[in-house]
């Protein structure tokens, strides 16, 4: 790829995000709509979560059910850093948790995301180690176990009000207005989608690099990969650490979007939601997983008019989709022009082909 094309792409994404930010939060606030912003931010977070889980579940074929634990570590570490370090590190931020301008939030958000990401990556290293010995379902259940243990430990940390919800920090001060330092509201659409773009870019680069081939080799046949001289252990742990790092960043972003952080957001069912995104999108397909993440985040909102039935429609769709399209909505391939053409041909074949000649 020529250099100008690569940088052109980066500049385009950056420019579009800046424009979006200006429309949303600029002086005119043309497009500002709290509800839509909320849904969009959740879409962005879902993309980060799903694409990074895809590195473990899709690329290396290991099965992690515990990614919500990394998300939780990132969220609480990030929130603790920005709240406790408020007076020393980020004195320019407001203490009442009101939104912050784009450039004011740049440095703090970089700091808290890195902190959250690195903490999660460290935990990811710990969780990745057992994957040396365990396979398949055993690995799935052990990652789930780690996530549950993280949940219970955080619940017992009083410094971040793990048992209830973390809304900030009471401070001994004469001034009533300064008596409470809230977790700053740093996250905006710009940051979420910047990170999402970054994760997608990293995943793509990885997928089509030599390292990516090693990941795929581990997925396809671990023994053969080992025999070909691939250090499977190293790649499995690398996948866990990388994936946990981005998940932790997503957690930190999430923590600085919510006005309060509750352990209810990190239940084991949320892990399952992300796994469903990855499988429905097609294991290993970055574009497919991205689209599935957006679809599955918007679906409950779109189903809102049917009230209590929406919770039933979602699992029914899941079962029916698995029956009729087990390879995921988009299959294992990347969504591209050739892919689209292939799909159209197969749909055309659907009407003409006789079932006996499968």
């Amino acid at each position, binding site marked *: 790829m020529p250099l100008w094309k690569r940088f052109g792409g980066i500049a385009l994404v950056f420019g579009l995000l800046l424009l979006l930010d200006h429309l949303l939060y600029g002086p005119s606030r043309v497009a500002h709509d709290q509800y839509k912003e909320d849904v969009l931010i959740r879409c962005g977070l879902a993309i980060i979560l799903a694409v990074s889980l895809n590195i473990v579940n899709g690329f290396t074929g290991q099965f992690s059910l515990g990614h919500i634990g990394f998300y939780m570590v990132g969220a609480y570490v990030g929130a603790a850093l920005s709240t406790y370090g408020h007076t020393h590190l980020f004195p320019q931020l407001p203490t009442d948790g009101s939104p912050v301008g784009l450039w004011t939030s740049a440095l703090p958000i970089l700091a808290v995301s890195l902190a959250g990401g690195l903490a999660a990556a460290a935990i990811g290293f710990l969780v990745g180690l057992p994957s040396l010995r365990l396979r398949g379902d055993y690995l799935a259940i052990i990652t789930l176990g780690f996530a549950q243990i993280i949940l*219970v430990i955080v619940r017992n940390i009083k410094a971040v009000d793990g048992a209830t919800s973390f809304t900030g920090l009471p401070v001994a001060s004469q001034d009533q207005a300064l008596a409470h330092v809230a977790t700053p509201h740093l996250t905006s659409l710009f940051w979420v989608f910047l990170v999402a773009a970054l994760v997608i870019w990293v995943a793509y680069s990885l997928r089509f690099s030599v390292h990516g081939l090693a990941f795929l080799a581990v997925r396809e046949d671990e*023994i053969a990969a080992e025999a070909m001289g691939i250090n499977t252990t190293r790649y499995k742990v690398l996948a866990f650490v990388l994936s946990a790092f981005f998940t932790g960043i997503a957690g930190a972003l999430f923590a600085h979007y919510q006005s309060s952080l509750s352990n209810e957001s990190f239940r084991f069912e949320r892990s399952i939601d992300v796994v469903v995104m990855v499988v429905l999108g097609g294991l290993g397909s970055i574009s497919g997983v991205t689209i599935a993440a957006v679809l599955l985040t918007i679906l409950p909102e779109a189903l809102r008019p049917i009230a*209590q*039935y929406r919770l*039933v429609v979602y699992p029914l769709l899941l079962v029916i989709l698995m029956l009729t399209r087990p390879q995921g909505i988009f299959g294992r391939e990347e969504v591209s022009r050739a892919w689209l053409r292939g799909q159209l041909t197969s749909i055309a074949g659907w009407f003409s082909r006789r079932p006996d000649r499968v």
Partner: protein
Amino acid sequence: MHDLPQQILIGLQLGSIYALIALGYTMVYGVLKLINFAHGDVYMVGAYAGIGAAWLLGTWLPSVVHLPPLIPSPLGAVLVLLASMVICGLLGLIIEQAAYRPLRTRAWIAPALFLGAAVGYVAYGIATNANRTPVSAIIIGIVAWAGLAALLYTTQRRRSPGSGSRLTALITAIGVSLFLENFGVLPQIFSSDPRFFPNDPPIARLAPNVETGLIFTVSLVLMIALTYIVTRTRIGKAIRAVSFDSDAAALMGINTDRVIAFTFALGAALAGAAGVLVFGLQHTKFDPYVGILYGLKAFVAAVLGGIGNIPGAVLGGLIMGLAETLVVAYGPNIGIDSTYRDAVAFFLLILILLFRPAGLLGKFAPEKV
């Protein structure tokens, strides 16, 4: 430590419940290599089935026939237990036929029937909510049913049998689990309000101390019955053969689909019994989401003992029940808060899997090429 025997009894009781549920996980895993996530929810349905049976026997039957009410009485309690086991067994059978079997074979009639009924009911409910007339709502429901049946008919005929991947089955299991929970929450089904078994009078009028031991005893009887079925009967032999090597078993003339269906029914019946035992004898409240945590812990118990291994599931369940109870009882003395109760199970699991990667009684088979 003066009440240690009492604590151990409570631990064994909790452990025997975990063991009953874990048996269903482990047997299904044995024959199908599938983590049946919906199993915890079958346990929840068991509790509701028990409440229904208790109402039938205690309130409805005496008002129709001139008989003394069967509730409370030991006979009534046994009938409630059996009713719940039968209903859950049927549910297990339906789940297998409607959701898991079509992933392996070209079967389409059963999934079209049951999945279609669910889709049709949901479509009917949505139409009713949107203020349609009853007739048009029913028509919408039937059209949705027929549409799904047609879809399954066309896609299932194109399936090459045995092509389903294990991950697909896992996601399907998650879907079934979510469906059972969220369907139960609908106000016209179970609703999300917590329920109790008819507490006054209790379904079996016995002294409270006896009830503690009773859960353990009944579970033990059920486990012995299961051991008998698995080791001494023809179908039990078939189950063992299928979990040893399902392809070879099929070549030997064993109808593997029937064995799998029977295994599901058996496991589900045990989960149903566990539901009645826990909520019927302890009088704790339950709601449609109660199966999640119990199911998860029972699954951990099954893995702990070595998944696919029947004695392993019982051992794992008992170890987990004891560990959890002892941590709650004595943990605070040595600085472990009782809120760590839910983490103990997983901590034990990680510890044991690190040293015995296939669980306590599982056989670790090095991979051969």
